[in-house]
Every structure is written in C-alpha cells, then in structure tokens.
C-alpha cells in the first residue's frame, strides 16, 4: 500500500516535470524541471531499495551534471534565444517514434503475459528483508565482476576531460 503510494507519487512528479522540461521555452526553467525529474527518479531508486544509486543520482546527476547544464545555459545567454522559435516542425517523426516505442513495450508485455509461468510481469521480487546492505553489495560487485569496466571508466573520464577542455578553451 505504502509502496504503491510512494511509487505513484514519485512517478507522477517524474512524468509531469519531464513533460515540462521539454515544453518550457526558457532553458533555465527546463533545467529546474529536469532537476525535479531526476530527484523523482532518485526517489524511485530508493523505492526499489537501490540506496547507493539514489545518492549517486543526487550527487552526480543533480549536484554535478545539472550544475554544468545551468552554468552553460548562463554562459550562452539564452534571453535572446527564448524569443526565437523553440520547436522544429518534426511532430510527425516524434509521434512515429513514440508510437513505435509504445507498441514495442506493449508487445513485449503482452507476449510475456502469455508465456506459461515464466513471464516477467508475474515474476515476484526477492523479499525486501533478504537484501544485503546495498552500498556494500554494489561495491563488492563493482570491484569483483566489473573491475575492468571500472578501470576503463577512468579512460572515458580522461577522454571527456581532455575533449571538453580542448573544445571549450580558446585556441591561442
């Protein structure tokens, strides 16, 4: 009961603010609503008992990436841009994409419901009290099975760092 209330609460916030993110004309408002959507997603993570991911979402996404977005919005002076046309005329493409995706997930759910006993929708989760402490568990998994991706992530970050500085710094 409580789980449901919390899920619908966060899901409603996430969807509404996602809609507002893509429809606001002012990019700063878009960013604020994206922050709300990300926080609501963090709430969903918490509801799914992924505590560590919840805080990573808040620290990295909200406290890191969104700060970057807000900075850039302020750097490129969007007061001029607000008065320009904000939406390209590609409504039909958008409609097509959304219909295709919805059909795909619907088909997946429908077909798996017909599978005898094995379908995803009827599978029940591991009981909550049997779950180990989350951050330790994520850490163990990260440093045993996913050690190589972890090391490669540092290369990705290195590339991002160099790429961004090369892009943004004035060529002198």
């Amino acid at each position, binding site marked *: 009961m409580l789980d449901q209330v919390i899920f619908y609460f966060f899901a409603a916030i996430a*969807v509404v603010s996602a809609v507002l993110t*893509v429809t606001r004309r002012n990019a700063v408002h878009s960013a604020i609503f994206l922050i709300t959507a990300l926080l609501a997603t963090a709430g969903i*993570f918490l509801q799914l008992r992924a505590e560590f991911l919840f805080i990573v979402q808040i620290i990295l996404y909200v406290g890191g990436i969104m700060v970057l977005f807000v900075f850039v919005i302020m750097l490129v002076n969007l007061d001029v841009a607000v008065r320009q046309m904000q939406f390209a005329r*590609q409504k039909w493409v958008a409609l097509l*994409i959304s219909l295709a995706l*919805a059909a795909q997930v619907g088909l997946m*759910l429908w077909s798996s419901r017909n599978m005898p006993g094995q379908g995803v929708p009827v599978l029940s989760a591991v009981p909550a009290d049997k779950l180990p402490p989350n951050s330790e568990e994520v850490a163990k998994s990260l440093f045993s099975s996913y050690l190589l991706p972890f090391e490669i992530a540092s290369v990705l*970050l290195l590339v*991002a760092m160099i790429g961004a500085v090369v892009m943004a710094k*004035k060529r002198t």
Partner: protein
Amino acid sequence: MLPIGHYLFLGLALFIIGAIGVVTRRNVIVILMSIELILNAVNINLVAFSRLYGDVAGQVFALFIIADAAAEAAVGLGIIIAFFRNRETVLEDEMDLLKW
C-alpha cells in the same frame, strides 16, 4: 516492489518524452537535457530488473551509465560552447557547416 510493468511503463513514458524532446526542440542544450531524460528512463529499467532478480549487476550498470552521462554532458556542452563562440547561437538547425 510493485509488478515490473509499472516501472517499465514509467521508463517508457520518460523515454518517449525524452525522444520527443530530442526530435522537436531546436535548442541544443534542451536536446541534451532530453537525452539525460532518456538515460534516466534506461536507469529506471535497469534498477527495476536488478531489484526483480535480486542482483546488483543492474545497479552497477546504472552507475556506469551515470558516469557516462557525466562524460557525455561535459563533451557535449563543450561542443556547444565552442559552437556558440563562433556562431552566436545554440539552435541545432543552424549548425549547418561541417567546418568553419
């Protein structure tokens, strides 16, 4: 945990909203934000399945996706800044030169 369908539909909704944003908006920064929405939808699905199967692998994947989103945002916004410096605009349909 609720049945997995709830989470899949939430992820689907966010994904579609993000995709529509990518397709219809002209402002590149908002397009990047829509991409963040899409990544978020993917993360919701991963975490939901991770909870369903009681396996943290999905969460580790989501962790990497967030790290990747950070890298993507850094480089993407760097490109926007470089572009803005030269063309004084952030609208994607005005990005019509391969080299300037």
